[in-house]
């Protein structure tokens, strides 16, 4: 499923204008620990987190993740957004808490395998 479909389905707000939303999403990973994502997430996964500092962009870029979804209406800082645009990593936000967002991604068919 494409990132675009997720965004539409879950009414996610896209914070990075011009980002590639036609990227294929291969699964999902939820963690607020960066080394955990570096060690376990797979290429193409969408990353669900509440971390907003710019290192999340570096991690997403290094792992080839399809995008970052910030939960609980967290907003990325200016420098995080700038880096996300430069690295072409889509950042989206949702007011949903993690449990709900993940539940709905799972219902759409995404898995963490």
């Amino acid at each position, binding site marked *: 499923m494409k990132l675009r479909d997720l965004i539409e389905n879950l009414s996610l707000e896209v914070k990075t204008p011009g980002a590639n939303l036609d990227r294929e999403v291969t699964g999902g990973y939820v963690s607020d620990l960066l080394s955990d994502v570096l*060690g376990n997430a797979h290429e193409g996964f969408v990353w669900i987190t509440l971390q907003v500092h710019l290192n999340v962009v*570096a991690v997403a870029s*290094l792992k080839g993740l399809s995008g970052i979804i910030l939960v609980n209406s967290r907003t990325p800082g200016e420098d995080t957004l700038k880096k996300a645009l430069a690295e072409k990593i889509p950042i989206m936000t949702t007011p949903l808490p993690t449990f709900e967002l993940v539940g709905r991604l799972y219902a759409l068919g995404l898995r963490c395998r």
Partner: protein
Amino acid sequence: MNPDSEGVFFLTGKDFTNAGAASSNLKGILENKGVPQSIVRRACIAAFEAEMNLIIYAVAGMMRYYITTDMIKVVLQDMGPGIADIELAMKEGYSTAPDYIREMGFGSGMGLPNIKKNADKMSINSVAGEGTTLEFVIYLDQNANRNS
């Protein structure tokens, strides 16, 4: 060793704004050299974890890289405070990170294990009170040289 390319990045302790920049630069350099994506990924994940360790725990240091036709070698050297127990530090989940570091999502004790996982060879030496040197190598020809 006769590197085709080598360079150095200087790293400052607690400089979270620029943390990750060195690994990011290394990524660009490797990609420009046409290194296969899978190797770039491994090298840069290991470099990132090493860079973050230095920035989180050390006063200051540097990351040197060497690229030859056979391998990528990265050496990080810092000016302290050094690691008291390396064996403990290598254990998954073991961390000496303060709370504010953990709240940023670092310090979960997986950095060194992640480096080991991604590299073909890794060595780490440290003198408590003085500093740490971490070195890792990734071979470009994975069939010939990968250690099991």
